[in-house]
Structures are given as structure tokens and as C-alpha cells.
């Protein structure tokens, strides 16, 4: 079973040389720490930056330079700054190769719910609806089951949707799963030490799982 860093590490392997990538808040942010050496990747922050660098050294924080999670960050040589309209313009026109974001629920047809729980205070969707509606390649980083032990990979989302039929890959603490165009989760890799049966029980949506599905290789 993977911890958060393990999920981030596994997702990092999906990033290819030359990709522009948007990382959501939470586990997706951790992915930046595991981008393989020698691969040129540019991180977009939707508040208006291409080429997001690491956190600043202590004492060098700049209040005018933050990411979409409102964290102080840095630029890199070759960074560019732009306004919010251009930022979502490049998202809508699919200039971003890969979007990685978290989810509360994902359905077997690729719907995602990650912004609202009825009855609880709703903070808002931020840029998530724009990202999922536009991105050509979206990976969801999430826990396979919630704290009550219920599957978050469902036949149909129960929570209000963020986007429809948009997710194609999910990475959880248990597995890597593709969402098939015709519907259903396809088990691609198991987390180390996790059995196919365990994944089957943790997946409420339709699962296509080969008993010989390979274990993932992370490091």
C-alpha cells in the first residue's frame, strides 16, 4: 500500500520529457518532488505562471510570487507571467499536456467529484472545473477508499460533479487504473504487496482486472 509520497512518485513516472503540467493542491503538489532527472518539464500554476520553481530559501519569500495554493514559490530561468484570462485560455486551448488533481469520487465513466459535499461548507471549485473540462490528459491522485472504508471508485458519483467523462487514469494507494472509453476501471498495476482481490473489494465501480496484473515499480 502506498503512502502519499508513493502515489506522487508513481504519478511522476507518467510525466514525459517536454510536458507542460498543472499540479493541483494536495498529493499532486508532491509530484513535483519526484520528476525524474534529465526530463524537461514546465509546471503551470493557474494563477498566472509557467515555470514554477521550488519554494524560496527562508528570508527570500516574495509576497507577489505565489502558486495556486497561495504558497510562496520561485521562478526559474525561462519562466513567464501572465494574467488569469490567458492562464485559463491556455488551459482551454489544451496547451497543458497533463493535469494532475485530487478527487473525492471518480466514476467508471470518468466523471469526477471533488468540490462540494452537500450540507458542508462549500469553499468553491477554484480552477478545477476549467481544468477537467479542457485538459486532454488528466490523472487523478486519490485514496481508493474513504475513512469509513467505502470505495471512492464508483459506478456513478454520489457527490455533485466537477466534470463529466474526463478522467482517463487514477492512481491510488492500491493501484493504477485506466478508465476505459467504453466505461469501467481497468487495473494496470497493483501497489506493492496489494492483491488483485483486495483491489476488487475496494472498487465499487466496474473493474476489469487480470489476476496477473503486475506490481508497480516505483524507484
Amino acid at each position, binding site marked *: 500500500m502506498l503512502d502519499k509520497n508513493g502515489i506522487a512518485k508513481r504519478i511522476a513516472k507518467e510525466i514525459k520529457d517536454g510536458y507542460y503540467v498543472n499540479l493541483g493542491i494536495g498529493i499532486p503538489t508532491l509530484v513535483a518532488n519526484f520528476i525524474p532527472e534529465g526530463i524537461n518539464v514546465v509546471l503551470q500554476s493557474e494563477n498566472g505562471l509557467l515555470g514554477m520553481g521550488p519554494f524560496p530559501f527562508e528570508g527570500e519569500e516574495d*509576497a507577489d510570487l505565489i502558486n495556486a495554493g497561495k504558497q510562496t514559490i520561485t521562478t526559474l530561468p525561462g519562466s513567464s507571467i501572465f494574467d488569469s484570462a490567458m492562464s485559463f485560455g491556455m488551459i482551454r486551448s489544451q496547451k497543458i499536456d497533463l493535469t494532475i488533481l485530487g478527487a473525492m469520487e471518480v466514476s467508471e465513466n470518468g466523471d469526477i467529484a471533488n468540490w462540494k459535499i452537500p450540507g458542508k461548507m462549500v469553499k468553491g*471549485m477554484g480552477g478545477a472545473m476549467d481544468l477537467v473540462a479542457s485538459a486532454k490528459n488528466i490523472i487523478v491522485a486519490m485514496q481508493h477508499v474513504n475513512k469509513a472504508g467505502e470505495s471512492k471508485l464508483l459506478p456513478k458519483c454520489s457527490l455533485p460533479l466537477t466534470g463529466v467523462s474526463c478522467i482517463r487514469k487514477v492512481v491510488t494507494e492500491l493501484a493504477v487504473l485506466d478508465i476505459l472509453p467504453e466505461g469501467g476501471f481497468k487495473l494496470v498495476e497493483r501497489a506493492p504487496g496489494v492483491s488483485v482481490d483486495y483491489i476488487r473489494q475496494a472498487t465499487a465501480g466496474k473493474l476489469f482486472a487480470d489476476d496477473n496484473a503486475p506490481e508497480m515499480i516505483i524507484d
Partner: protein
Amino acid sequence: MINKVVAGADEAISDIKNGSTLMLGGFGLCGIPENCIAALVRKGVKELTCISNNAGVDDFGIGLMLQQHQVKKMISSYVGENAEFERQLLSGELEVELIPQGTLATRCMAAGYGMPAIFTPAGVGTEVAEGKETRNFNGKDYLMEYAFDADFALVKAWKGDTAGNLIFRSTSRNFNPVMAMAGKITIAEVEELVEPGVLDPDHIHTPGVYVHRIFQGANYEKRIEQRTVRPRN
């Protein structure tokens, strides 16, 4: 050149009235019009509709106006990190319209570019689409979203000249340029106000034609919401 300079924030916002619709630039607490917000709190105008990506924190940004019960409605994409906001929302005192961040930015741009409506795929098939026209182009569904109609836009720039030209610094640019274009009256506060000719015409982000009033702000606090750092080695 046409001189857009006013003495300060109080003069700049003097004709903002109860019930006005305002756009406020900034993302989180980054690039917010601190001086204009302080003046609005001093003036005590109420029943405001505020279009702003976020709603500040309890004791800074739009949070200061919420404390004084000046806001009737927020139109935002994300409103976390604000206990007073939550209290007013749950008590029914405050109305909130949550819209996707890109839709928010593009509805501002539409107003500035004289386009009455735009099409975006954001929110198709979700509750955001309720009551909106959906239209298919090349096999993909889009929502038609209308340009905003704001009485005033309050923006914060780094440098500006007396002709109203603005330059923003780093990611404090965010919503400021698109809101500057979109306000019926646009008020810009800047950290440094210079004479015409000091700013390179090629570096100007917001041409002065969009700015009706400009002043040099004071005492910028520029609070940081999430101070994240890394150790030196």
C-alpha cells in the same frame, strides 16, 4: 496625455454607493487593492456585490469588509480560509455565487473586450450549467456565459503613470489586468506612481485608456497566506 491622478483612496472611491457592484483584483491576498479596501471600510458603504476570485481572510482583504457587514453578495471561485465569511453565509446574511475560476477571468475579459458572452466547457454537466445555454461546437459542449457588468473595478499594480498605464509585478498580476479592462469605472492603486514616459510602452500591461483614476497607495502590508520555504542546503 490625459491625467488620471486622484489624491488618494478616499477620493478614488468617493462615488461608490450602497448597492454598487465591484470587481476586486487579486488572487488570495496577492495583488489585492489594500488601500481601496481600507477606504471602503472607512466609508462604510453597504450592500456591495463583490466579484473577486477569493474573499480574503478574517482580518485582511475583503475579510475586513465582511467584518463590517458591507458585502451582500460574493461572486468568487474559492472562498475558504474565512470563518466570518462562513458564519455570514450559513446565517443567510451573505449570498455567494461560486463560479469556475477560468469562467470568472473570461467573463471579465469579455466585458473589457466588448464581447457580450463567451463559450467555455467549464461546468458542462455540473450544477454550474443549470439554467445556462449549452451549445455544441465540433462535437464538444460549451456553456454560454455572459460578460460581467461591474460599476467599478479596483485593481492594484506595481507601477503606474499619471496617464493610467499600469505594470504588474510577478503573480500579483492575476485578475488585475482583466478586471481593469472590465470596470465601468476603473480605479488603480500603485506602489509607485511615475510621470508619463518613465514606463516603456512595450512593458505596459494595462493601457491607460482602461484606467479612470490612479493614485499611489501607502503602507502595503502584502500579507503572505502560506509561507513555504526550503532550508539553505
